[in-house]
């Protein structure tokens, strides 16, 4: 019974010319967005790789100098470009691409791509996500708003049920019949896309991307299922097909265009995070730590440890030790500060995700950015990895100084090192996190998406059971 209804519904849709050319438009836009996105990603990746190589050359090509000077010269880490950028830009335009790593300071990544784009770019760029999050749900609404309301208005609903079709079967049949044509079009498209990636992308990229693409497909399918469910629910309970359509269009519009902005705004108010003032204060605190105090402390300690009375007799270079310990202290304080900043952003993100209880897009969009590697957590992961590297190389250089500089209380002007030390520091090798990790930080979004699905699976049959059979 369910299958019979589903088949009839699907056949009707597939026979409708409008279905085919709207699907064609969707596919053309998707392919266009993905193709141009791919070209863009390739270009960016090439440029980042080139830049990283040039930077390494600059680093190893440093002239002979004091190792600590190299820590001041610093080096850049370039944020890797996610291969799935064509699918969803996420926050990549608003997070920096180059992170400068030097001693005595932690910095945020510089040069956000949005700063180099025109103002109109803030209106959004065409990615696969835009098509999947805005256009496809609209099509779902247009295809299914009349599922029950239309039959009711035409007067075919009562006769259908009097034939002995159970309401549950009808609900399931309609849902299946609406989903089937969509799946028929979208699933092959997804498979083709994945296959293209597997064939044309380098193996590590493909290996990293494919599980994420699979999960993305699932997330979007769930999103489409939610829209089918909501559409059927409204269709069952609305006064007329026109009323159902207007309500659904209102839902689609509010969900797609008002909710994200409203959620971001509200979350910023509810969870303000670290203010500019507090941040400046934190930085000032670090800056205020005086060198004199530290010199005194380190000197006293070294003298005590070695049981000598003057710095001339100690066995290590005191300024080197001071540098090492200074780096330790400053790094700890800076890390705490940046952690507060990042936690603030992530907290805001979670508050925004909580809006997913009213608008499913608020659950799906974060998941989409997470799986494509374009969310804030991925940026933070990169920044923290760079920070670990920074601390590592700076302290390596400081340790080198401790090990080799002339013992005493004054700066060793003579000691210089060259390429063997520079090249000895390994280049920054960043490993992007796994799909599991990506989802890990978005439990709330997953939960809400799940809630929507479960809720609709319960609500649609209930609504179909109670729906009026005759037009009012």
């Amino acid at each position, binding site marked *: 019974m369910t299958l019979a209804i589903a088949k009839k519904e699907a056949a009707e849709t597939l026979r409708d010319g409008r279905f085919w050319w709207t699907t064609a438009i969707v596919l053309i836009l998707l392919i266009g967005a993905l193709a141009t996105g791919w070209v863009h990603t390739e270009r960016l990746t090439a440029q980042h790789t080139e*830049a990283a190589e040039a930077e390494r050359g600059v680093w190893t090509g440093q002239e002979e100098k004091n190792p600590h000077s190299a820590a001041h010269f610093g080096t850049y880490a370039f944020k890797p470009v996610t291969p799935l950028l064509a699918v969803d830009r996420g926050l990549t335009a608003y997070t920096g691409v180059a992170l400068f790593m030097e001693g005595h300071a932690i910095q945020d990544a510089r040069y956000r791509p949005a700063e180099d784009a025109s103002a109109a770019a803030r209106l959004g760029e065409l990615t696969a996500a835009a098509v999947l999050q*805005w256009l496809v749900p609209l099509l779902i609404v*247009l295809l299914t708003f009349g599922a029950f309301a239309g039959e009711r208005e035409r007067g075919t609903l009562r006769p259908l049920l009097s034939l002995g079709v159970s309401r549950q079967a009808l609900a399931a049949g309609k849902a299946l019949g609406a989903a089937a044509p969509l799946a028929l079009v979208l699933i092959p498209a997804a498979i083709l896309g994945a296959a293209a990636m597997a064939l044309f992308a380098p193996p590590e990229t493909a290996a990293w991307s494919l599980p994420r693409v699979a999960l993305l497909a699932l997330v979007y399918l769930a999103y489409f299922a939610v829209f089918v469910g909501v559409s059927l629910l409204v269709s069952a309970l609305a006064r007329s097909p026109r009323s159902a359509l207007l309500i659904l269009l209102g839902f689609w*519009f509010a969900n797609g265009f008002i909710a994200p902005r409203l*959620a971001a705004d509200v979350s910023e108010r509810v969870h303000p995070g670290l203010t500019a003032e507090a941040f400046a204060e934190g930085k000032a605190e670090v800056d205020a730590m005086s060198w004199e105090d530290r010199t005194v402390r380190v000197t006293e300690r070294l003298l005590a440890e070695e049981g000598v009375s003057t710095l001339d007799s100690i066995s290590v270079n005191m300024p080197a030790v001071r540098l090492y310990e200074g780096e330790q202290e400053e790094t700890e304080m800076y890390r705490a500060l940046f952690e507060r900043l990042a936690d603030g952003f992530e907290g805001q993100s979670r508050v925004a995700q909580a809006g997913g209880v009213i608008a499913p897009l608020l659950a799906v969009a974060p998941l989409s950015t997470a799986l494509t590697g374009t969310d804030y957590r991925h940026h933070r992961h990169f920044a923290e990895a760079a920070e670990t590297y920074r601390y590592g190389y700076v302290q390596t250089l400081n340790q080198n100084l401790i090990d080799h500089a002339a013992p005493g209380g004054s700066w060793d002007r003579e000691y210089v090192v060259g390429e063997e030390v520079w090249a000895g520091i390994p280049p920054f090798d960043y490993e992007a996190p796994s799909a599991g990790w990506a989802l890990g930080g978005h439990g709330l979004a997953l939960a809400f998406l799940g809630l929507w699905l479960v809720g609709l699976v319960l609500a649609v049959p209930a609504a179909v059971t109670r729906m009026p059979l005759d037009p009012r």
Partner: protein
Amino acid sequence: MPSPLLTVARTEARLLRADRTAFWASVVFLAATAYALASGLSLRIERAEAARAVLTADAERWTEGQAEADSIEQAMQAEGLPLDTYEWGPRSPRGVRSPYAVGMFYGRNVTTEPTPLSALAVGQADLYPASHRVTAGNRIAVGSSEALTSPLRLAAGAFDLAFVLLYLLPLLALALGYDLTASERERGTLRLVLAQPVSRRALVAGKLLARGGLLALLVIVATTAGFVLAGGDLGRWALWTVVALLYGLFWLGLAAAVDARGRSAASNAVVLAVCWLGLGVLFPAAVTLLASQMHPAPTRATFVAATRTAEADVRQRGTEPVAQFLADHPEMADAMDDDVSESFAVMAIARDALVAEAVGPVVTQFAERRAQQTTFVRTVGALSPTVLAHAAFLDLAGTGDAQQQRALDAVEAYQERWRAHFEPLVFADTPFRAADYPYAPQFEPSPETSGEAVRQAAGPLLGLALAVSLMLGLAISLQPRALAP
């Protein structure tokens, strides 16, 4: 006896009062406007306070520095020491008389106050740093304050009045226009109406007058409330309101044109939803994508690599850059004190000049590509009223591309003056006396005048006017005469 058009308009206005869709659309629009104004204003207040805090702190530091320099000089004079020596600084001592510390290390912090109308259209203002540190000897990256706005918030965009007008006004207009004659046809009243001696054109025009009137009223209420609260001048208010009215009327006209097909209201709603998504959302997004494809700006990674390579090259040249710099700037050579020819301050200045020269072409390329992208978007994007209205709103609020660029240019110009003031001092090894403090260059932000903003917005405004005329003309003339109601 008033003309049929006015008769229709008056009754239509009466009927609108009972229309639930119109009611709810209006309520949502006004509620959103209220929220947007509150949100935008609080954002502007925050930014203004932050800017003021930076300026106050900087002014304090400057005054303290001057006072300290003064007391040092007095002490020196008391001890009979010559005043042409100074402590280098920048830490312990702070070097308040050192041209290196004052000019190259501390510099000055400059901010640009948020424009009053940035409360209505945040535009690009949230993307750029609140303050810049201007120093000599560091041309490439004018030190900027940390970007502390959440990237999530930046990506989502601000919920300001511009957003309400760009996205919710079309919704209101489409809600008011989608069933222009369709609902009358479905209700059956169209038969009796058209059996009277009134032409379809007069009927449509009358309905448009009434519904357009409601739309106009809501728009004017929204913009006037915005301008009163945000505090803008009359010229900008007038233009902003005209742009918003034209934008709303465009969508109303589109709804009327779609309604002229003579199909059901539901069918109209479907077509209009697709039109709005296409014209208002997907087309602008596609244009931006195309712009970045046709005029791809190199990623900043390339810029950084070029800068670093140039820096490394210059460093390899040891002290030669100083000689090069002096060759390029002979006026400095005369005043130069040979003792400092190898001081790292002089080296820094010389290297900075050479690196800036080497990297110049890359910087120019960025600026060129960006200009090309913006031009492309403004011309091709003109096909979408959303792009036009967006550009106009931002230009009028002072937060668009041109205005941001102008602000950055002002900062850079100030840096030039600062550099020109302090570099000779460093080269000549002259102290920066307490008496010199008041004569250091001051930052003068020069925000765009109303006239300039209006001129910027004129293009989009004309585009919109054209689009609206086309739409409304189409709607009224397309009424199929032979279609039985």
